[in-house]
């Protein structure tokens, strides 16, 4: 084959030469080329290797339906596999190479698999590779997994980069009255109609040029019409987006678009994203998505040098390339005549074979005028040649099926088997297109949504009719005209003749239906033979239509062959279902900027920087970063937290607790509301007092715990755990708005408004006394246990002080407005230092609370009852509250449920892990007797301790030997279970 660039013509910019590399060699093309057109201009034919049989493949089309010229572009971390050369815009420095081949696509060792193709038919892998051949002896998956390694290596197409993608991607959002998809004759006219009606229009085009089929015309008048329309649209403020694919239609007129920022633009501005993912909400959507030409199944119809007829027209008219010198055009419809004539006029020797017995004189004239020889009742039977086309053997229709005919020499075989409207986007809406036997294609049906189709996407074949179809469909969509039914599908002079496969008798040949997945017509028949007759079974069994083109070219042929095998019409076989995206979309674009460190919001407390400046190491707590420990000198985490906990018990410690959820509960019914929400009594909580409370879910299991402070008659401040803050807030709003609208209560999240610290230890009161103004008394009378008061820190900082303790020490929580957080820390820390105090983090907080047997998220895991957690006395029996009924379900009341316990190691020098199971020494199996939720080294007790759950609670196991069983980490450790209140069980320290 001898493709060459013609001296003139086409829509390329011949003044801008572009250098690119294909498989390591340097080539040149022009601005306005695709990679495929540039390769063709350089007479490069063998571009790819097929998925299964590694057959040589060339350029088959001029668009997104391409199944042959699939390549890898870029290198290193910018390597992109599975790029269709036919839709890749050429740019300076483009690197492209063949894929799925070794050592290269021209000489591919993988082609040996083709020798075994008689065995590698559809679904053969379901029938073997299970055990030892030949009779599949054996058990289990071992043998299969050896085969699988080889199969995986052979499968796949391109190779992805292993390096992080260095480019960035963006998300964008838009609204419009009308979204027009496709900028061909119908799309441009549709946009024009809408723009003239004053609508806000977005026009998107997947190609880098606007114009669609206008660009493929030889008629200069049409080229200039395109320019005029674009100018008017721009004038009218239509948002015209080229390089933008509408890849999916979703609910409520939402469309997903992928915009490819051009490499030229990116080179000029490195801050541009590589691609943008647009979410567009359109009032109405018009799909002018065009139609794709089908091939026909015949022997070796996949050879490099076999192309769709329309593609040759595109290469000629848009890219100024004569794709071959000696050409045979095979068709079953009128559309290929113009292409044949244009190629002949451009200097090629062209013969046209038409499967139809005859066509009108007018049609014959089109060919004859250009010097194209024609034959009728004739179709391609087999391509001769292995890596190129040497010729084509024809078949003649003798009335009773095909008979072998002449061999015609040629180097390029163009095929037109009819056209398939691109109904993909409509299909995303769950609408099934209908088979139209007259046009031999699936045509869109009306949608109940504001979506219409126009032009060849609606089966309108003539350019002028497409223009009218676009205007009419838009007028109807916008309600400017009654109906657009005046433009009907069709438009050819002579009816198309169905032609899906050409073969003689039962001959077994390699004739491809789905070229990309190497699905042959025999595969379709085998699927039928084995009972895979529905379209869904057919595609899953043979992989028809599952390749990267989603069967754009092959599906109809496959269904036609199945219909034939079943003796039914195509309409009875089923329809095609296309799923988004229309063409593959990079995962990078869909993800946009919210990746890596920006994957989720990061929440920091108002004292975050202060903590860091004072030696904090941070840890993740949900979305929050919290101080984990404040190491001194070269302390390890273990040394640091033990020291911190010790200091809090002996002197004073300060801990940032700002991440706790805080909710203002206000209104005349606030106390009634809280009394229903918490399991314990809240109705009589006095002003100036705080209370620890437990909330249950509707089903009676524990939801969250925290404290609630009564600041005044109608004003409460609730705290929640860090992890449940948002959930509790939503829950309270739900209760107030949905269930108890009669309650006069308002809730506001004030987590971010307050900075809060816990100050714990025997010196806590003295220390705080030094930090507050004289008017703010914190002595035992003014601020007794569970007391709350407003006051002022030194310097006049307003604060709330509550005497509550999570650590079991004499402790206070101090809240100030968030902005005063660092100032409060300065003040407190200055007072703590002379007392030998410390800053403590989450790890020491954990140690202190475990010693006391206070529960937190690890214990309240959504599966425990209030009794399980040892808090049964907080379940009021005197009132009804959320969960009070369902918590009494029989299984939840059983005495032998796992109950909260403390855990000591038998050997006080040994340690054990949270997550270990608790087993009896002679019964290390099954679910055990319980599990361990939290472990710490107790500075008070001088050994490791833990919390956990054991069936029946610690009383049931007193004095018995148990094991902490942890096979995934450290094995068995002898333990005993004790009361969860391991330090100061009477609470004397905090009351002190």
């Amino acid at each position, binding site marked *: 084959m001898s493709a060459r660039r013609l001296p003139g013509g086409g829509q390329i910019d011949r003044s801008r030469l572009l250098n690119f590399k294909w498989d390591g060699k340097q080539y040149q093309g022009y601005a306005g080329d695709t990679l495929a057109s540039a390769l063709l201009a350089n007479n490069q034919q063998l571009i790819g290797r097929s998925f299964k049989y590694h057959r040589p493949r060339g350029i088959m089309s001029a668009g997104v339906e391409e199944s042959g010229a699939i390549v890898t572009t870029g290198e290193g*971390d910018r*390597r992109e*596999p599975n790029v269709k050369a036919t839709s890749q815009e050429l740019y300076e420095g483009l690197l492209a190479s063949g894929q799925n081949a070794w050592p290269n696509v021209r000489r591919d060792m993988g082609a040996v698999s083709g020798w075994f193709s008689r*065995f590698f038919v559809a679904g053969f*892998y*379901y*029938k*073997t590779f299970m055990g030892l*051949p030949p009779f599949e002896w*054996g*058990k289990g*998956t071992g043998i299969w997994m050896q085969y699988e390694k080889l199969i*995986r290596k052979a*499968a796949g197409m391109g*190779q992805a*980069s292993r390096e*992080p*993608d260095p480019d960035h991607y963006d998300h964008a959002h838009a609204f419009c009255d009308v979204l027009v998809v496709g900028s061909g004759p119908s799309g441009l006219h549709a946009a024009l109609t809408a723009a003239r009606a004053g609508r806000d229009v977005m026009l998107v085009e997947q190609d880098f040029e606007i114009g669609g089929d206008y660009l493929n015309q030889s008629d200069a008048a049409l080229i200039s019409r395109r320019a005029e329309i674009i100018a008017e649209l721009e004038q009218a403020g239509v948002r015209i987006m080229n390089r933008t694919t509408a890849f999916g239609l*979703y*609910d409520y007129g939402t469309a*997903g678009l992928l915009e490819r920022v051009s490499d030229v633009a990116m080179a000029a501005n490195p801050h541009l994203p590589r691609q943008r*993912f647009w979410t567009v909400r359109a009032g109405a959507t018009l799909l002018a998505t065009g139609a794709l030409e089908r091939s026909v199944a015949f022997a070796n119809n996949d050879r490099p040098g076999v192309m769709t007829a329309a593609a040759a027209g595109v290469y000629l008219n848009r890219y100024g390339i004569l794709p071959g010198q000696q050409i045979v055009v095979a068709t079953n419809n009128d559309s290929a005549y113009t292409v044949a004539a244009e190629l002949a006029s451009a200097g090629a020797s062209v013969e046209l074979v038409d499967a139809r017995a005859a066509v009108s004189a007018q049609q014959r004239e089109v060919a004859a005028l250009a010097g194209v020889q024609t034959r009728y009742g004739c179709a391609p039977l087999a391509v001769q040649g292995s890596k190129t086309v040497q010729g084509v053997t024809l078949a003649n229709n003798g009335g009773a099926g095909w008979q072998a005919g002449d061999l015609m020499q040629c180097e390029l075989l163009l095929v037109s088997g009819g056209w398939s409207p691109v109904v993909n986007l409509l299909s995303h809406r*769950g609408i099934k297109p209908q088979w139209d036997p007259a046009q031999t294609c699936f045509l869109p049906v009306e949608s109940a949504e504001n979506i219409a189709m126009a032009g060849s996407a609606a089966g309108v074949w003539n350019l002028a009719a497409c223009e009218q179809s676009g205007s009419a469909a838009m007028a109807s969509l916008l309600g400017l005209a009654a109906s657009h039914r005046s433009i009907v599908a069709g438009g050819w002079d002579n009816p198309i003749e169905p032609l899906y496969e050409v073969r003689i008798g039962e001959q077994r040949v390699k004739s491809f239906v789905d070229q990309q997945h190497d699905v042959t017509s025999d595969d379709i028949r085998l699927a039928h*033979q084995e*009972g895979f007759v*529905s379209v*869904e079974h057919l595609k*899953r069994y043979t992989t028809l239509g599952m390749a*990267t083109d989603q069967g754009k070219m092959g599906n109809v042929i496959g269904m036609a062959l199945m219909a034939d095998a079943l003796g039914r019409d195509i309409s009875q076989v089923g329809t095609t279902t296309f799923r988004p*995206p229309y063409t593959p979309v*990079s*995962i*990078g674009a*869909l*993800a946009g900027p919210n990746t890596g*460190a920006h*994957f*989720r919001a990061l929440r920091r407390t108002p004292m975050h920087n202060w903590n860091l400046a004072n030696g904090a190491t941070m*840890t993740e707590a*949900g*979305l929050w970063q919290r101080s984990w420990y404040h190491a001194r000198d070269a302390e390890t985490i273990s040394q640091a937290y033990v020291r911190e906990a010790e200091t809090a018990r002996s002197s004073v410690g300060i801990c940032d607790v700002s991440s706790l959820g805080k909710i203002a509960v206000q209104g005349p019914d606030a106390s009634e509301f809280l009394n229903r929400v918490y399991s314990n009594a809240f109705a009589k909580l006095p002003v100036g007092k705080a209370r620890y409370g437990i909330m249950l*879910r509707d*089903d009676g299991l524990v939801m969250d715990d925290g404290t609630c402070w009564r600041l005044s008659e109608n004003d409460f401040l609730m705290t929640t755990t860090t992890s449940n803050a948002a959930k509790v807030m939503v829950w309270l709003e739900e209760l107030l708005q949905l269930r108890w609208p009669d309650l006069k209560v308002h809730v506001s999240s004030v987590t971010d408004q307050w900075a809060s610290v816990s100050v714990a230890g025997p010196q806590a009161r003295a220390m705080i006394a030094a930090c507050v103004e004289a008017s703010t008394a914190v002595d035992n009378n003014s601020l007794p246990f569970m007391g709350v008061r407003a006051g002022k820190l030194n310097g006049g900082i307003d604060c709330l002080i509550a005497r509550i303790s999570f650590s079991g020490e004499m402790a206070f929580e101090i809240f100030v407005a968030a902005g005063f957080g660092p100032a409060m820390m300065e003040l407190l820390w200055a007072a703590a230092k002379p007392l030998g105090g410390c800053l403590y983090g989450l790890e020491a907080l954990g140690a202190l609370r475990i010693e006391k047997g206070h529960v937190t*998220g*690890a214990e309240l*895991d959504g*599966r425990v009852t209030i009794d399980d957690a040892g808090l049964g006395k907080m379940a009021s029996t005197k009132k009804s509250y959320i969960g009070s009924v*369902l918590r009494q379900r029989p299984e939840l*009341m059983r005495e032998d449920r796992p109950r909260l316990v403390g855990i000591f190691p038998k050997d006080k020098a040994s340690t054990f*892990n949270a*997550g*270990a*199971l608790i087993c009896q020494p002679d019964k*290390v199996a099954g*679910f*055990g007797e319980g599990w361990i*939720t939290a472990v710490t080294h107790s500075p008070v007790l001088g050994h490791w301790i833990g919390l956990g759950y054991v069936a029946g609670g610690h009383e049931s196991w007193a004095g018995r030997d148990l094991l902490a069983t*942890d*096979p*995934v980490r450290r094995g068995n450790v002898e333990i005993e279970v004790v009361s969860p209140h391991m330090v100061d069980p009477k609470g004397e320290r905090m009351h002190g």
Partner: protein
Amino acid sequence: MTRFSAWNVFRNGLTGQKGWSRQWRDPEPKKHYDVVVIGAGLHGLATAYYLAKNHSVRNVAVVEKGWLGGGNAGRNTTIVRSNYMMPGNREFYEHSLKLWENLSHELNYNVMFSQRAHVSLLHSPAAVDDAARRYNTMRLTDSDGELWDLEKLKHTIPYLNYGPNSRFPIIGAAVQRRAGTARHDAVAWGYARGADQHGVDILQNCEVTGVTRDNDKVVAIETTRGTISAGKVGFAVAGNTSRLWSMAGLGNLPIESHKLQAFVSEPLKPLLDHVVVFGVGGAHFYISQSDKGGMVFGGDIDWYKSYAQRGNLPIVQDVAEAAMSILPCLGRVKLLRHWSGVMDMSMDGSHFICKTPLNNLYLNAGWNYGGFKASPASGWYFADLIANDRPHPVVENHDLQRFERGINIDERGAGPDPKLHG
């Protein structure tokens, strides 16, 4: 019926593939069956297979409104694992995994179960402890499970995001080596072929339009292919359970139908050799690579109740964000297709294999995210229930009354909200 083997593949290769016959018959409905199973998905087909195989109940029909395996059987992300912890679930999924391990041989159909290991990433010491409890339970209950430290994880799966820009740095992983992926369609076809060989009638394009009762008994089902009388009836219809339930004149169920999306990329040469799961910061993401080379992945349900088998963009975006955050090399890998299936989400995230208020009606439902991996055991225990009219001890708490009794088989501790059990 030609046995599937390398020998027969070879022989048929030489003889033009003439020796293969239909993998299952396309019979006309009979007037009466001893058991009618509704739904020819994985669960229904497996049930029919085990009814015939384990219990010699062969006069069985599986009734399907569309094509067998056309629902969630072909819409899932093909992950098989047994890392369940709650009593009942633990034994059930372990049994299922054991059935999976020999399923290709059992069915003489290569279901391509690849025990490539299921790797759940861990990001905090608390998460490690939480995983330890689960994987310790697995180890003590006849299964496998291990924790990997960062070193081992990096060595085994080098392309994950271990970099400084990770929002939630990975510190290790919980791993079940016997877990992996399988070829979903093959499982449906394998069970269909197996059931058919045992004489089960698979009735496709046979939609149930009514359930005829005689007091507390189902006597027949009305279908688009006529009335079929039945000795016993089993429902195994995934997302459509509630509809069939009301056809039988029964009330509400502890189930909501939600849709879950799934995603596949273009085929790539081998990139990821394990199943990787990522769940932190409210995210939920799982990914593996199919034997064909596509990256198969998914995330959360679409949050709102839906019977529509199509998804929406916010979850597409969420899932892509998670994908890029843990596998940043996927930026230039392209999404090929996304689709969705309708799931029965139950009130505690666990399933139902149980008797019903009607004497001869049995229910198999509420599979949440677990349906694919469960299918062999689901069929096994459902067949056992139907044949013996009493639940096997392993599923005795998987009944509709468990909530009333106070049993929540809640793996996540999420409480009685179906959408939270993903």
